[in-house]
């Protein structure tokens, strides 16, 4: 059994992914670093944002100059939207690019914390699902909201580990574990992972994958951190599937207690 064979692929909306690590493409110091980090992370899907073309600056900034949608699956997001209406608008723009009908839905409720407006997210999810979108919905760690998003027909539910860009890691493993236990659709933890052990611990809760951006892009060495994250996600997944030893407050020797010399 080697690392590519200990696990099933991740299936979202009928599409199979070998890698359970999804990367954001924001905040890199330059595009070359971003490309190398994506490769080092062995990611098969990355998120992209929809923004106005800057008509006064170089056209280099369009990410399609750097990423080939035939090589890596692009997932447009609705980052920066504060209403269901706006999020629907951005989702439609993203789909019109002609790559896929997938969208990472996020409707933000507060500029300071970037926490989601769950009511608006559910509302937008319903609209988008009705229009045939494959909706991967960013949400907080509330089970009830996650259940509603699944009911709304989301292809995946994406609860946060902690606030976007905070690097605080998995603050509430109970809630994430419960969401995974109760939902049938894939659960991808999105936002808050800060370092490899956060990713590993998150995967150990049984979730199906992780989306991260800042942890890689703002590491001192993004490519090395991408390597770390690739291994951390595999490690956490394998450990979950392996079934860990019990925790115990008593010690138990690893070497035989018999056969000692007199």
């Amino acid at each position, binding site marked *: 059994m080697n690392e590519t064979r200990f696990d099933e692929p991740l299936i979202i909306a009928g599409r199979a992914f070998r890698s359970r690590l999804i990367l954001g493409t924001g905040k890199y110091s330059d595009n070359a670093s971003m490309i190398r980090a994506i490769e080092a992370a062995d990611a098969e899907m990355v998120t992209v*944002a929809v923004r106005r073309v800057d008509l006064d600056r170089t*056209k280099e900034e369009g990410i399609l100059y750097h990423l080939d949608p035939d090589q890596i699956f692009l997932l447009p997001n609705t*980052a920066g939207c504060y209403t269901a209406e706006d999020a629907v608008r951005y989702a*439609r723009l993203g789909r*019109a690019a002609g790559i896929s009908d997938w969208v990472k839905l996020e409707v933000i409720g507060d500029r300071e914390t970037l926490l989601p407006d769950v009511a608006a997210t559910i509302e937008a999810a319903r609209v988008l699902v009705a229009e045939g979108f494959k909706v991967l919905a960013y949400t907080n760690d509330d089970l009830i909201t996650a259940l509603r998003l699944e009911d709304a027909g989301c292809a995946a539910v994406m609860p946060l580990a902690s606030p976007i860009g905070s690097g605080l890691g998995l603050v509430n493993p109970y809630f994430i574990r419960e969401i995974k236990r109760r939902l049938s659709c894939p659960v991808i933890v999105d936002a808050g992972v800060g370092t490899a052990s956060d990713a590993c611990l998150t995967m150990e809760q049984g979730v199906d994958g992780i989306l991260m951006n800042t942890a890689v892009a703002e590491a001192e060495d993004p490519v090395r951190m991408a390597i770390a994250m690739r291994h951390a996600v595999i490690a956490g997944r394998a450990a979950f599937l392996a079934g860990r030893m019990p925790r115990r407050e008593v010690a138990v020797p690893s070497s035989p207690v018999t056969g000692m010399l007199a």
Partner: protein
Amino acid sequence: MTTTIRVTLNGDARDVVRGRTVETLLEDLGLHPRLVVVEHNRQILDRTRFAETEVQEGDNLEVVHFVGGG
């Protein structure tokens, strides 16, 4: 009759030579039609209709594309 019309392009007022289509306008801007999405008066304009859609006085055009984001 003036030879330019005034449109709102990505939020800014801009004078455009009368008679430009979305396709030629993008050309003028140096943008590849396959790499952008155009919203024309709040409706997404299918790429196949760029050539036939003439820009009109007062049009509101949004030209967007994918950028790095998480």
